[in-house]
């Protein structure tokens, strides 16, 4: 009998050296989909009891407490991030605390693949695949945004700025596509300059 083994969608992939950005898959993160009424004080308090943080209610924001983070997805939906090994324990605690409250919490750790983009060109590479104005101050550290990226649904989390660290969440079945997209569009020679005159490529 063979043991079931966790294998992520991008296991074994390595980015080539000529990319303008650093990319890698984050493989040790657990994710919990949490839904409930943000207007219900009991729900918010119970969530805080377990997670140690106030669920963010302002659109496109996030909150963190230690190794737990909450990303705003909708007025009544959050993506809870935690170390993968803690997911089960956190989920059980959430369900217990929320048992009498109209809500739900589900382990979705294998639903999405997380691709981490790092480097000063991270935003300009991502700009090639989406319509967001990623260079505006709206996209400061902590910002969370669902977006249409290279024609697929994705979730962007600006982890930190200068140097930029961006986490892009795509559904697992699109992981290969998204990864290849970055290899094709993230090459150093394909770097774009957002403003001003563009250099004419050598023929």
């Amino acid at each position, binding site marked *: 009998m063979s043991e079931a083994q966790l294998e992520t969608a991008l296991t074994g992939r390595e980015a080539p050296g000529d990319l303008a950005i650093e990319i890698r898959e984050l493989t040790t993160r657990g994710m919990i989909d949490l839904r409930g009424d943000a207007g219900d004080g009991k729900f918010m308090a119970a969530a805080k009891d377990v997670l140690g943080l106030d669920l963010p209610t302002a*659109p*496109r924001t996030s909150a963190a407490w230690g190794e737990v983070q909450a990303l705003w997805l*909708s007025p009544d939906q959050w993506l809870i991030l935690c170390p993968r090994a803690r997911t089960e324990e956190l989920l059980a605690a959430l369900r217990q605390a929320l048992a009498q409250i109209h809500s739900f919490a589900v382990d979705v750790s294998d639903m999405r693949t997380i691709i981490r983009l790092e480097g000063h060109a991270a935003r300009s590479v991502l700009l090639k695949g989406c*319509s967001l104005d990623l260079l505006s101050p709206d996209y400061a550290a902590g910002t969370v945004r*669902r*977006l*249409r990226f290279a024609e697929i649904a994705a979730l962007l989390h600006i982890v930190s700025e200068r140097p930029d660290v961006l986490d892009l969440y795509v559904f697992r079945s699109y992981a290969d596509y998204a990864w290849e997209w970055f290899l094709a569009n993230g090459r150093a020679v394909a770097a774009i300059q957002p403003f001003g005159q563009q250099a004419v490529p050598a023929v």
Partner: protein
Amino acid sequence: MLIVHCPVCGAEGDETDFHYGGEAHIRRPATQDPTTVSDAAQRDYLFMRRNPKGLHFERWRCDRGCGKWFHAVRDTVTMDFKATYGITELPPRELMEAASGEWAAFFKDKLDAAKPSRKGKSS
């Protein structure tokens, strides 16, 4: 390109960030007793849609934002979005008044019902 504004989360983007959901304010003819609904009423509910020149009232979904459905008023001549409003709400009064044709007929009793005197809110 259409620029759409979500009234729920404030996201603004072009129409590829949103999803068109057909005509707004469609009511199912009867939910209590379906056997009393005439074939004509059921047909109209399922298939008959308005096709106005000018203001049109639609449902949209904030597909790449908060995922919520909302209502929008779009001018079919200029493609300009005049307003967006909640999925359980009626359009802004001035837009109900500005509607023409079938929409004007549809909103007439809603405008009458919304007259300030009825609810006596001013007292």
